[in-house]
């Protein structure tokens, strides 16, 4: 960014006009220069005349002396009025300049004293003394030298030879201006090498310019060289026509004696003055012996040239920016159709810069720019308030424009800064590059969730601690400030740490605008506090938001786990990408998918099994039909021998058994795959057991076993398919009858335990039981030889049917005690759990319940 610091050019009473635009400015061409030189000449002439009078010519000299003295005294006084303001801004480049400017703004003009010059002089002296003190305090050392016109007034009174000598000695130190003053062919004063020490000696008409470097001192002036009372000026070796048409007017270039209408008294007739001016004036800093002060000599000419250079630069800048602005405007106008595109390009470019850089850069730029632009804006504000000519001296409008341009440039820079920030915020929100944040995030994500949570808490803790420290620091700073302020109020002087700190910063960044910056720094302190507070609040807020989101996610995860438990396997849990539980959710989803796949596989394989069994049983059934039919035909044959009839009997029985097995296998495969149609209804378990026992009464009575039953008279209602449940108990009882020890007892009991209807069938096995055997597996039987009548499917069918009805069947063996427990939820309790009822039977079951619960009134029965 281009920061322009226009060194203020001051006191351009002359309109430099076109000169400044042509290469290296020649300050010697300025009117101010000519004015200065005339004044110097006049002064030196005065000095020579004064010296002449002092040295003897009493009568004539008094007149001359008083005239010269009056002239000398009056001139500075008059000039002080005008020059005062020049000086005001002269040192604005220095940081103390503002204070100085302010100071001199408040100095009264001579008119306030009503022409009382003595009083005014007195007043000015006081002011100068105060000014010097103030400048001293700022460490400003340039004031009070011979250069300053005030010096004429305050340091030298020319009342005596000593004072004059002191002044001339000071003047001699200004090597920018070489001079020689001759009176009555006697060299009075000179600061030229080889002549300075010859003061008081005879002048033999030597040409002083011969001893000087013509390049360095390109301006030579002689007064009265040829004893004609005229001035000769040579610049760069070229004789200049000083007098033009020989008549002095307001437009004349040189205000020197020698015109037809501008002559000077007789007393100057034997005075010769030589002046040589440096082409590039320097500053001469001289430390007086025994003084801590450094006095600056040659400042006027130096500043004159310096100001011109600065002005030229300023004008160049003004021209440059104006041109650039015009060109840009023209381009903007010509390319107005691709404006949107340009805006997008800019936004794209801004996006490339990562957020962290921007966040760091923006405050820095803001502070820097605020510091730099405060001065120009202040001036702009003054222009606005007091009119354009507030700083204007002698109509130097070009310079004014240059300064306005400066303010304009700052305005433009501010505008673009704000525009870019707004544009960036508007266009690139949410899609910023932010590697550092992302890095933090990514780093965060590498940790498992528990570590992440702890880290987050740690971060909050650190933020809180930092906040506490910051508050303590602010308190200290405020306390310090209060101390300083109190000291200030009570008039004491104390070293200011705060100011010292500010000074350090200001030197780095450039001074904003004088003392104002010091207070700005104080104002910025709460700003920093608020920024820090905001940051920490943000950290806490972000943490809170993350915690909230985590809570929501935990809820969702818990719900999902519940849903999976309930059997919902299709809907996956989708959490946002940066969720802490994302991984857990993904894992759960995978489990879910795995379960779903496994279940699907299982269902598929079960279905295949059923299909296989169905097909196989179908294929068996057809030949079996023939077997049974022909066995029956054989059985009907009358003339067969007895043993053949027995064979036929066996054939028939085995064929029947095969039929049973085929049917059983078919049913069990359907039951286990959930394809068995169910008729669920509310029924009385006790009644069902009694019915089953009654149905099997013949078998039971034919066996050697004794049935011991404990079935309550009160109804125990369960929801099940009665037909299937009958099959269950039929199988269980048949099992008991078939495998029990001869003459032993079979115990059947029905109890209600914790909302469950529990049926227990206990019997003593006829053969030794193997403890580890699962009797409910298909084709598993106590006797491995398979010679008995059982298919090995009885218990398996019982279990499948029980489970299909929503109950549970367990087999326990204790030594030879064989216990089968069938448990069903009691109907009242069952209702709530309807959801978990077997899949295929749900609808049918409900309808069946409603059907069976429809009461049949006695009237209905009677009416039939």
């Amino acid at each position, binding site marked *: 960014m281009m920061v322009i610091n226009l060194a203020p050019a001051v006191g351009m009473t002359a309109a430099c006009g076109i000169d400044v635009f042509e290469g290296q400015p020649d300050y010697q061409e300025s009117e101010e220069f000519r004015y200065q030189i005339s004044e110097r000449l006049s002064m030196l002439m005065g000095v020579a005349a004064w010296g002449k009078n002092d040295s003897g010519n009493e009568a004539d000299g008094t007149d001359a002396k008083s005239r010269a003295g009056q002239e000398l005294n009056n001139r500075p006084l008059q000039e002080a009025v005008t020059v005062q303001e020049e000086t005001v801004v002269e040192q604005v480049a220095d940081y103390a300049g503002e204070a100085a400017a302010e100071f001199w703004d408040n100095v009264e003009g001579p008119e306030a004293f009503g022409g009382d010059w003595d009083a005014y002089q007195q007043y000015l002296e006081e002011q100068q003394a105060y000014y010097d003190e103030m400048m001293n305090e700022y460490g400003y050392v340039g004031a009070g030298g011979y250069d300053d016109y005030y010096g004429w007034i305050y340091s030298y009174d020319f009342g005596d030879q000593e004072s004059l000598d002191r002044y001339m000695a000071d003047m001699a130190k200004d090597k920018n201006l070489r001079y020689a003053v001759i009176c009555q062919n006697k060299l009075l004063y000179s600061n030229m090498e080889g002549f300075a020490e010859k003061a008081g000696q005879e002048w033999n008409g030597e040409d002083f310019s011969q001893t000087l470097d013509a390049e360095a001192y390109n301006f030579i002036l002689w007064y009265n060289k040829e004893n004609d009372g005229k001035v000769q000026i040579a610049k760069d070796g070229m004789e200049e026509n000083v007098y033009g048409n020989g008549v002095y007017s307001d437009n004349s270039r040189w205000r020197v004696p020698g015109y037809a209408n501008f002559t000077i008294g007789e007393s100057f007739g034997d005075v010769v003055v030589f002046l040589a001016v440096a082409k590039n004036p320097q500053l001469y800093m001289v430390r007086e012996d025994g003084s801590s002060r450094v006095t600056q000599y040659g400042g006027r000419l130096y500043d004159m040239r310096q100001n011109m250079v600065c002005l030229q630069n300023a004008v160049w800048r003004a021209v440059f920016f104006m041109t650039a602005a015009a060109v840009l405007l023209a381009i903007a106008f010509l390319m107005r159709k691709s404006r949107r595109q340009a805006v997008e390009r800019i936004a794209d470019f801004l996006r490339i810069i990562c957020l962290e850089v921007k966040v760091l850069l923006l405050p820095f730029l803001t502070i820097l720019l605020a510091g730099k632009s405060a001065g120009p804006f202040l001036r702009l504000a003054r222009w606005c308030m007091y009119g354009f000519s507030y700083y204007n001296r002698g109509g130097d409008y070009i310079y004014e424009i240059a300064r306005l341009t400066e303010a304009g440039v700052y305005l433009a820079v501010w505008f673009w800064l704000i525009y870019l920030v707004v544009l960036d915020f508007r266009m690139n929100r949410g899609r910023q590059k932010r590697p550092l944040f992302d890095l933090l995030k990514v780093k965060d994500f590498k940790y498992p969730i528990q570590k992440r949570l702890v880290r987050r808490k740690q971060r909050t803790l650190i933020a809180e601690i930092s906040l506490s420290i910051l508050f303590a620091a602010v308190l200290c700073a405020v306390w310090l400030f209060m101390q300083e302020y109190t000291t200030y109020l009570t008039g004491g002087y104390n070293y200011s740490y705060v100011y010292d700190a500010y000074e350090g910063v200001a030197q780095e960044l450039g001074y904003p605008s004088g003392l104002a910056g010091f207070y700005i720094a104080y104002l910025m302190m709460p700003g920093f506090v608020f920024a820090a507070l905001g940051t920490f609040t943000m950290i806490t807020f972000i943490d809170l938001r993350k915690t909230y989101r985590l809570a929501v996610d935990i809820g969702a995860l818990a719900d999902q786990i519940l849903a999976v438990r309930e059997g919902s396997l299709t809907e996956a849990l989708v959490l946002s990408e940066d969720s802490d539980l994302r991984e857990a959710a993904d894992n759960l989803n995978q489990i879910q998918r795995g379960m779903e796949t496994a279940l699907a596989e299982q269902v598929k394989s079960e279905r295949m099994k059923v299909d296989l069994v169905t097909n196989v049983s*179908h294929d068996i*059934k*057809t030949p*079996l*039909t*023939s*077997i*049974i*039919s*022909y066995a*029956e*035909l054989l059985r*009907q044959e009358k003339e067969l021998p007895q043993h053949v009839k027995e064979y036929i009997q066996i054939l028939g029985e085995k*064929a029947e058994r095969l*039929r049973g097995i085929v*049917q059983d296998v*078919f049913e069990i495969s359907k039951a286990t795959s959930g394809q068995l*149609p169910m008729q669920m*209804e509310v*029924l*009385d*378990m006790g*009644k*069902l057991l*009694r*019915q*089953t*026992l*009654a*149905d099997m*009464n013949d078998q039971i009575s034919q066996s050697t076993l004794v049935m011991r039953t404990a079935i309550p008279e009160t109804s125990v209602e*369960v929801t*099940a398919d*009665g*037909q299937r*449940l*009958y099959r269950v108990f039929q199988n269980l009882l048949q099992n008991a009858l078939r495998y029990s020890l001869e003459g032993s007892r079979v115990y059947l009991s029905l109890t209600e335990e914790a909302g469950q209807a529990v049926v227990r069938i206990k019997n003593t096995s006829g053969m030794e039981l193997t403890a580890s055997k699962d009797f409910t597996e298909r084709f598993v039987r106590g006797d491995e030889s398979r010679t008995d009548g059982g298919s090995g499917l009885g218990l398996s069918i019982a279990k499948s049917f029980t489970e299909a009805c929503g109950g549970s069947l367990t087999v326990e063996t204790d030594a030879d005690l064989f216990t089968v427990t069938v448990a069903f939820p009691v109907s009242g309790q069952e209702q709530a759990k309807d959801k978990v009822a077997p899949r295929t039977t749900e609808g049918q079951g409900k309808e069946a319940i409603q059907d*069976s619960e429809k009461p*049949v009134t006695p009237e209905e*029965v009677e009416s*039939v």
Partner: protein
Amino acid sequence: MDACVLVVDDDREIVRAIALLLEKEGYRVIKAYDGMEALRILAETEVQLIIMDVMMPKLDGLSAMMKIRERKNLPIIVLSAKTEETDKILGLSMGADDYVAKPFHPQELAARVKSQLRRYTMLGGIHAQNEAEEIVNGRLCYRLKERTLYADGEPVRLTATETKIMELLMKNRGRIFPAEEIYERVWEEPSFSPENTVMVHIRHIREKIELNPKEPEYVKVVWGIGYKMEKK
């Protein structure tokens, strides 16, 4: 009896076995081995009953049955190796009068043939009776005045208690009676553990009226609730 039965099955051995069985029972049997052949025979010959397998080449049993039902109203017994309820319901709803699952017991098939033929030949006669005096339920008919139960038009010999039970059940077809209620109504005294008593009688009745007592069609146990007469 000289009723003519058409047996249709692609398994020649089964057809032959059925034919032998039925001929022993005194029926005239015509054999066919696929649906088309059955249709052809039906067009030429007078047949009183058809026994037909479902799965056959050329024209399957169900399609053939639909063709037959377009013109004739004779009883059809469907044979199938498929024992699922849905198959049975499908067969019956498409016009079969009875459904016998393979492997069947020859005696049962013979009984069903007999039952169907009886009903078929007696159809007009049943309707001639006064409807108020008899309750008809499928093969069964209970004549209130006579206090007699007829199965396929033949009187069934029932004991007095059995008759009472049947009267109760026939009067309230489809209604489920708990054993207690049956006992109280039939024996007309309070019941105490009636399950066994009622069950014994029910079993006896089944053996008398059901074609296959092990898989009863009329007097059914509603397990865990009671007993009922299936409404046909």
